[in-house]
């Protein structure tokens, strides 16, 4: 126990005592459970009565939708939790006390990030019983689940590192929160939209018109590499390997050939590694910025 990051340990203790944590756990699991029951009802009771046939592939839909919920939860919760991490200490005037001790800025940053991610893992793990519905029927293995958990953790680290970065840079929690949600939205939603828009414009310039068939062409060329930093595409690539859903995106990226073919096969791993790299760089910068004695590149 002694070598556990002390900042992390304290955060966990506080989180465990907050009513908010309990409420969040309850609401989240209730949502998941209701949804699971609904699908069960639709699959076995209604479908069984109407057509005398149970469509077992429905369970994959159930798994996919539950994964989406979990993924969405990470995108929604992590920016808020991490944005408050350091800026919150600054606002509460506990940061100077922390920095006056022997603990290093890097330890503070890592402890904070780990605490935020633990929150997500707690939610994910607490929902395991509900997810077990999926296992009761089969189609998804434990290995798949472990894979998915790793994906969720990496996504949380990736999104969280932006939150921590803004938390270190901004004086106020509100500003940091706005910044980290904005970044999340840019990465998750605006980036693909922008790439699509560029694609559209290009097609339009070439052939003078554009149509919805262009939509299915997806993003081409080197630009598609930017999608490595887009969590939803990573999500799709992970789920595709497991539930067979979302193949289109991967296929159209793969159709570019060469490196892209390789990428479309291993998109999940490559994109997670890329995102981890970004996170590591951001954590490094954050730790540097948090160090009051670091030389700042200010005008002399």
């Amino acid at each position, binding site marked *: *126990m*002694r070598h556990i990051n*002390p*900042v992390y*340990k*304290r955060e966990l*203790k*506080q989180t465990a*005592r*907050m009513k908010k944590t309990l409420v969040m756990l309850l609401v989240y699991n209730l949502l998941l459970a209701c949804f699971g029951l609904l699908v069960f009802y639709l699959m076995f009771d209604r479908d069984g009565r109407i057509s005398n046939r149970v469509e077992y592939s429905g369970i994959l839909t159930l798994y996919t939708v539950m994964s989406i919920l979990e993924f969405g939860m990470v995108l929604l919760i992590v920016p808020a939790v991490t944005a408050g991490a350091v800026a919150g200490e600054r606002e*509460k*005037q*506990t940061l*100077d*006390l*922390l*920095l*006056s*001790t*022997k*603990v*290093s800025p890097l330890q503070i940053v890592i402890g904070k990030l780990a605490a935020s991610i633990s929150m997500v893992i707690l939610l994910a793990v607490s929902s395991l019983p509900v997810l077990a519905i999926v296992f009761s029927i089969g189609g998804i293995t434990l290995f798949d689940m472990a894979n998915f958990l790793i994906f969720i953790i990496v996504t949380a680290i990736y999104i969280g590192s932006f939150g921590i970065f803004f938390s270190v840079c901004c004086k106020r929690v509100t500003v940091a929160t706005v910044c980290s949600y904005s970044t999340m939205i840019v990465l998750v939603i605006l980036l693909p939209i922008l790439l699509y828009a560029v694609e559209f414009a290009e097609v339009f310039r070439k052939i003078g018109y554009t149509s919805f068939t262009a939509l299915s062409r997806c993003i081409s060329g080197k630009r598609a590499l930017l999608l490595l930093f887009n969590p939803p595409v990573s999500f799709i690539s992970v789920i595709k390997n497991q539930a067979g859903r979302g193949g289109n995106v991967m296929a159209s990226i793969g159709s570019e050939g060469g490196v892209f073919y390789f990428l479309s096969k291993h998109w999940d791993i490559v994109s997670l590694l890329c995102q981890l790299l970004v996170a590591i760089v951001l954590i490094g910068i954050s730790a540097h910025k948090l160090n*009051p*004695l*670091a*030389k*700042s590149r200010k005008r002399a």
Partner: protein
Amino acid sequence: MIKIRNLRKVYGDIPALCGLTMEIGSCELFGFVGPNGAGKTTTMKIIAGLLRADSGEILIDGERVTVHAKKLKGEIGYVPDFFGVYDNLKVQEYMEFYASLYGMSGRETRKRTEELLGMLNMTEWREEMVDSLSRGMKQKLCVARALVNNPKLLVLDEPASGMEPKYRRQLKELLQQLCAEGKTILISSHNLQELSEMCTNIGVIDKGRLLMQGNVQEILQEQTISNPYVLQYIRFPEEAMALLKSHALVKNIAIRENSLSFPFTGTREEAAALLSGLVAAGAEISSFFREEGSLEKLFLEVTT
């Protein structure tokens, strides 16, 4: 112990420190005074490694704070002027948390926590939530916290503001005891009476520069000697006045209603002889004393 050399710090356009040079010896209880905005908090933050000076250097035991920050932070206890506490944390856990930041083991931590809470009479609060404590209690807790790593140097920024008289006395006694045990203490305060009672040395700064520093006893003595004697009387006949005026060591007698004051350059024995002379001449004197030197007076003199 601490050598501050030509320290400069500018916030935007506001100069906070303009070449502060100061020295604090080992085992000194050093009072740091100055008007609001003089640069005390800034100096203390730089010593505690929470702020980078624009130029100049601070050596603690010959080591620069910017270079050996991590090691030195383990030897400094810092109490900031304003600070907050965490929610959902008990006093005991609060202490344990800060101990763990110094890499102390569980057993060591528990022992130290118990010792410190006992020292500050806070043992019965150990199960209280820190955010439910009153301001003065939090300040006491913060002093205990600053001692958790058994630092050689304590840097306290107005630790007693907001404390009730009983706590202030406890704190004063604690600091004197710690100083006697060999710790060096740097304390800033606006309560000069209190500082003059406990400090061994004092430094006055204003506008980011040191105005004066020295041993408190010596400074006070010097001041006392230059202070005039005040004599309050019920009856002061002409004979007594004539005696006083003709005395070689008495000059410039200021006469007020029922009291006189005059600078007196003689020793205590000579003052006693003068007093019995005046009584013999028929004066009825209710009090006869020399005003004690006070830091407050000194402060007002040097900072204007």
